[in-house]
């Protein structure tokens, strides 16, 4: 049990953070075929937002809850700006979006380096996250519990929004069949923008959670973008459940390997597993079934 409980619990928390980072990618990739390499920088923007909010609100007990919605909006607006200024001219040219967004990510990183101290900025954890929850003899840091709760709330809200609102229905219609959705009178342009806003906003929320785990600096986004893309690829596109299961799988896998072997070997092993999985099931865990001919 001693060898199983810590990696399972911490892996779930790691997976929860990956999930928050991957949700937006899954949405924009699934719906628009956009490979957004700047998504990690939206996460960074969320983390810097947490820092800025902490400069205004002194108490970290209060500033982190306030930072969550603020980071959602700020990162979302950056996403919207990217969509309106660049991405919208590149739909259905996924390779071009990949190249352009790599450029955007470098620009955003350098901008952060110019604006903020180069060592990175400190984001303080709220006092109510001090302490541990003892689960079967393991003192599980409360911060990990918080990450899982945060991801659960975000996913539930997103799922409900997709399922029960008219905007959500329009998004799902566009994912299923863009041409048919347009024929039915849906403005897919508006839907695209909204999706980009929500997807980037979720990365902002992930950024606040990440600022409690590691450093807040110009290069922090880079360490999340690759595992997030793996999650999207392994999970299959267009469906939330695939992303959720893949994120938890990658998170728990990474943590178990890190606990049983070493932190470096864990990265290699987890990637090998995903490669093997994609060989067996190239379409990912789940796919959207359509009757379209292409």
């Amino acid at each position, binding site marked *: 049990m001693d060898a199983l409980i*810590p*990696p399972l619990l*911490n*892996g779930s928390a*790691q997976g929860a953070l990956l999930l928050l980072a991957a949700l937006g990618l899954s949405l924009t*990739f699934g719906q628009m*075929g956009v*490979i957004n390499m700047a998504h990690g920088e939206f996460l960074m923007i969320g983390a810097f937002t947490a820092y800025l909010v902490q400069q205004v609100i002194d108490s970290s007990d209060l500033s982190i809850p306030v930072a969550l919605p603020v980071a959602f909006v700020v990162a979302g607006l950056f996403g919207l700006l990217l969509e309106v200024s660049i991405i919208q001219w590149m739909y259905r040219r*996924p390779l071009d979006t*990949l190249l352009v967004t790599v450029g955007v990510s470098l620009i955003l990183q350098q901008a952060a*380096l110019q604006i903020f*101290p*180069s*060592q*990175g900025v*400190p*984001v303080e*954890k709220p006092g109510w*996250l001090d*302490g*541990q929850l003892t689960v079967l003899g393991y*003192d599980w*840091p409360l911060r*990990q519990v918080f990450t899982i709760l945060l991801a659960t709330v975000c996913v539930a809200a997103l799922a409900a929004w997709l399922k029960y609102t008219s905007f959500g229905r329009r998004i799902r219609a566009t994912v299923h069949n863009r041409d048919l959705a347009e024929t039915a009178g849906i403005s897919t342009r508006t839907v695209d923008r909204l999706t980009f806003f929500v997807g980037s906003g979720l990365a902002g929320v992930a950024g606040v959670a990440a600022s*409690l*785990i*590691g*450093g*807040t*600096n*110009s*290069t*922090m986004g*880079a*360490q999340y973008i*690759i*595992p997030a*893309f*793996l999650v999207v*690829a392994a999970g299959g*596109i*267009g469906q939330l459940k695939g992303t959720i299961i893949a994120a938890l799988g990658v998170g728990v896998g990474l*943590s178990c390997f*890190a*606990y049983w072997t*070493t*932190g*470096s070997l864990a*990265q*290699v092993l987890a*990637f090998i597993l*995903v*490669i093997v999985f*994609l060989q067996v099931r*190239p*379409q*990912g865990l789940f*796919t959207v079934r*359509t009757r*379209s001919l292409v």
Partner: protein
Amino acid sequence: MSTTSKRLRTLVAAGAIGTTVALVLAGCGAKAGDETPGGSAAASSCVDTSGDTIKLGFLNSLTGGMAISEKTVSNVLHMAADEINASGGILKKKIKYVQEDGATDWPTFAEKTEKLLTQDCVGAIFGGWTSSSRKAVKPVVEKNNGLFFYPVQYEGLEASPNIYYTGATTNQQIIPAMDFLASKGVKNLFLAGSDYVFPRTANAIIKLYAAKLGIKIVGEEYVPLDKDDWTTQVAKIKAAKPDFIFNTINGSSNVGFIKAYYDAGLTAATTPIISVSIAEEEAPAMGHEVTGHYASWNYFQSLKTDTNQKFIDSWKAYPNSSGVTSDPMEAAYISLYLYKALVEAAGSFDVTAVNAAAKKNAITFAAPEGTVTLDGENHHISKPGHIGQINASKQFDIVWSSDAFIKPDPFLKGYDWFPANVRDQLVKAAG
């Protein structure tokens, strides 16, 4: 969905995997940009010493991940150049510096070195931070018979006629830290490091010395340099119940380590940390108070020496200054003054003449850490060993110091517990 998106997904996965493999390889100390020396004979120097200026090259990463650390080194080099110019220059020639960006990319470091030496014709190059950058520069300065001044503590086991090392080698930082731990009566030690050549080599040395000191190593953990999440590894550390943690983690991964450490309920009172990469600049950026933990360096802002206060005041007044001074900054500051002293002793900017002047073992500089002496054989400098404890104002109180300045011994030849076969192995592994 369509076949396009299937192909796309494979593409994304392939790209992601490729990048990670590359990162892991780089982390293993691959010698990116390493060129085979030899072939062309040493180029004759094109350094222009006829005018009233001397050109020098500064090579620091101003963009990319390492800009976090190297921007400060670049700034302090500019400050030292301004100071030297204000006091008359080197051999009455004003320094005219060419600043180049290494961009956190080791082949770029090699290319820019070549450019600085053969096109800008600089007298010497100052900079670098990671060992990978130094190893990329090394063959190029050797081929062109140039000079490179490297300002960061590192894993040792290296000496080049074309490189001067002004940061600590292992016997000036790692060994003093172990002596301090032994004096505190530490019995069980845990080693936590980033996964690249410095922590791996440092820990190999620590394990050998610990065996001699009777300290038990209860665990050893590494996380890649570009990963911040230490939660899982800290769970292992906590389970091993060490009395002390030896931290060789570098960069922002330190922030993740400190956060995971406190989140797991560990404290400085029960399981203190001794670090070799957390200094005055890093301590306030952890997002958690770090009072009570230790660091091993040769310079602290709190040191009381004849020259330190002046150094601190000049730095605080300098544009773009971070407001605090730290060991790597001070080593970079030394490097430019050491070059000045060497050239003035040689009476020439010629590399052969400079190296001949170094051989006399008489080059000294009244540095902020005290008067350092250059070792003409291995091109390292003598340094005092200090252990600082972090106080509430994020500065370091000095709690332990070496008896005297420690002579540099990059190959640890003066330590009987360090076997020759291990040395050969480590030298080979470090490339």
